[in-house]
């Protein structure tokens, strides 16, 4: 069964189904209850599931994230909402030193089946402290899985995938996508964690991306057709683990690589992907790989500056064209 819905509705549905299916699932975070979620994702859930399962927390990111870890150890299946990635730094010690670490340092005794959701990304003129894209950065941490749903299908499916995982999973929802629309096939078998998806097959160059940049890349790919450039666009879906296999296959086909991500450039996930392609498919490359990331500044408020700082379809087009010229 397929239906058209927004990304927000897809996440909502994913959450609702998870709550209905498994009593151990509960949602906890700032303003998830009475307010309805800062992006209106859990609007009405408090009425439907009650305050025992939809828990408004105080502004205490570290403690309620840690409490999520503890509840997961206790057999529950908590979904912690950190509102936005900007506030997640306050919970980072719990995420790195407990959630990601407990299983290993206990010698395999204590796994942490915790799901942490947060909105990510700039583009809404929210300026320096509210526009981070740190999902690629989080992918540095062993013990975590890092998911970046871009499509309606993934916005929905990844909730279930994450909850089925016995270990901590972070889901980064692109704030710019909540109102985007698309098709959800409720019968389709979900593509597992760790698998990338070729969103558009092409033979001339590979564009690797995820989250809201996926749609910019697809738009760019369309613009490139009349220019005689046939771009393959891959939605990474998961930043940890990365799907090396799908990436290398595509590189072996196109021999040219452009990576687009909304993190700051130095130390971006784009760098990691470049490193892996260098390691695993160096001799397939016809030209240096290119990356388009966000300018290395705290995002400024004015629209023209924010636009100039973030990746956009026109910049992808320009870089792709340049990349085709090189050899």
């Amino acid at each position, binding site marked *: 069964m397929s239906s058209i819905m927004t990304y927000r509705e897809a996440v909502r549905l994913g959450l609702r189904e998870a709550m209905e299916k498994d009593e151990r699932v509960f949602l906890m975070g700032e303003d998830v209850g009475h307010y*309805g979620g800062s992006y*209106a994702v859990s609007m009405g859930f408090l009425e439907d599931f009650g305050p025992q399962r939809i828990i408004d927390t*105080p*502004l*205490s990111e570290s403690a309620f994230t840690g409490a999520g870890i503890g509840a997961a150890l206790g057999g529950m299946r908590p979904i912690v909402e950190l509102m936005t990635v900007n506030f997640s730094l306050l919970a980072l010690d719990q995420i790195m030193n407990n959630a990601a670490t407990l299983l290993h340092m206990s010698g395999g005794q204590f796994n942490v089946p915790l799901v942490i959701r947060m909105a990510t990304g700039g583009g809404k003129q929210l300026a320096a402290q509210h526009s981070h894209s740190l999902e690629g950065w989080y992918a540095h941490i062993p013990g975590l899985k890092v998911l970046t749903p871009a499509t309606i299908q993934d916005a929905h499916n990844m909730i279930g995938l994450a909850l089925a995982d016995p270990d901590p999973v972070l889901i980064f929802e692109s704030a710019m996508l909540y109102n985007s629309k698309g098709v959800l096939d409720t019968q389709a078998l979900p593509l597992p964690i760790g698998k990338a998806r070729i969103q558009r097959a092409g033979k001339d160059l590979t564009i690797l991306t995820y989250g809201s940049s996926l749609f910019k890349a697809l738009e760019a790919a369309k613009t490139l057709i009349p220019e005689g450039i046939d771009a393959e666009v891959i939605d990474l879906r998961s930043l940890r683990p990365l799907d090396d296999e799908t990436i290398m296959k595509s590189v072996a086909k196109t021999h040219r690589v452009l990576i687009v991500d909304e993190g700051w450039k130095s130390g971006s996930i784009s760098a990691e992907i470049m490193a892996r392609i260098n390691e695993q498919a160096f001799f397939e490359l016809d030209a240096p790989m290119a990356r388009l990331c966000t300018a*290395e500044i705290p995002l400024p*408020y*004015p*629209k023209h*500056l924010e636009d100039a700082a973030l990746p956009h379809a026109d910049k992808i087009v320009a870089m792709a064209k340049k990349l085709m010229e090189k050899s």
Partner: protein
Amino acid sequence: MDLTLANEFYRKMLLIRRFEEKCVELYSKEKIRGFLHLYIGEEAIAVGLMHALSPEDAVFATYREHGQALARGIDPKKIMAEMYGKVEGCSRGRGGSMHLFDAETRFYGGSAIVAGGLPLAVGMALSDKMMNRNRVTVCIFGDGAVAEGEFHESLNLAALWHLPVLFVCENNLYAMGTALKFTESETNISLKAASYRIHSQQVDGMDVEAVSKSVQQAVSEIRLGNGPMFFEYLTYRFRAHSMFDAELYRDKAEVEEWKKKDPLILLHQRWKDININKYETEIADIIDEAVTFAENGTLESIEDLEKFLYSDEVAQ
């Protein structure tokens, strides 16, 4: 207090009120974007507070800081230009509504991470103490900040080191859509503050006179070296949390009840001779001027996008 001061207080509160109402208008015209958090209803705190400070004192505020910035004396033109993201803005347009900064008036933002400003204020006060400067640092935050670890750490440091900080908690009963009773096991915030051995008090935040008096006393105590102080001002925001808030979490009746305590009305009831009409006209002009200034402002050149990341890139 006399009529002159009452007039001044009224005028400043009215400036904030009308300025923000204009901002709402400009927001719906898409002149202002991003988040916009209104201070309407809470004006008495900013005005009473800033009146009691000296120019040498420092102010650290939150994302809900238009009122404090105006009361502190930052030029409304510069603030409006900031809301427009223009170079003439008080943060050169880079900050927007949530990040008003002004070196001249020692206004240190404009911080959008809840409780993130408290440690900074503690540090500023530490530097004053170290340099033997007789200045006070004021740190403003909401009831929501009280649950954060940084609140706890900062209050302890300030008390432990006897620092010249005035903590100002604007308790408007809600953090976004979450009522205080859902977030604190002890809802009397001043009691919580007292547990750090900080002199602490609840004050009516709708009464500009009461606010001003409390701060005046506190500031002179602090200047004498008597360590930090803490006020919990009971107040209410009449508007939504930001422009994206459906306000499902509180009753209209509750809002109406609080509107009866509107600080402007309250002050006028007490001082009937305040010349409201005169101020309305004056302020309308000031705001028009500010809007024109902002409209005519300059957009930063895109070439300068990456400026200001490091000091050597700052235009002199």
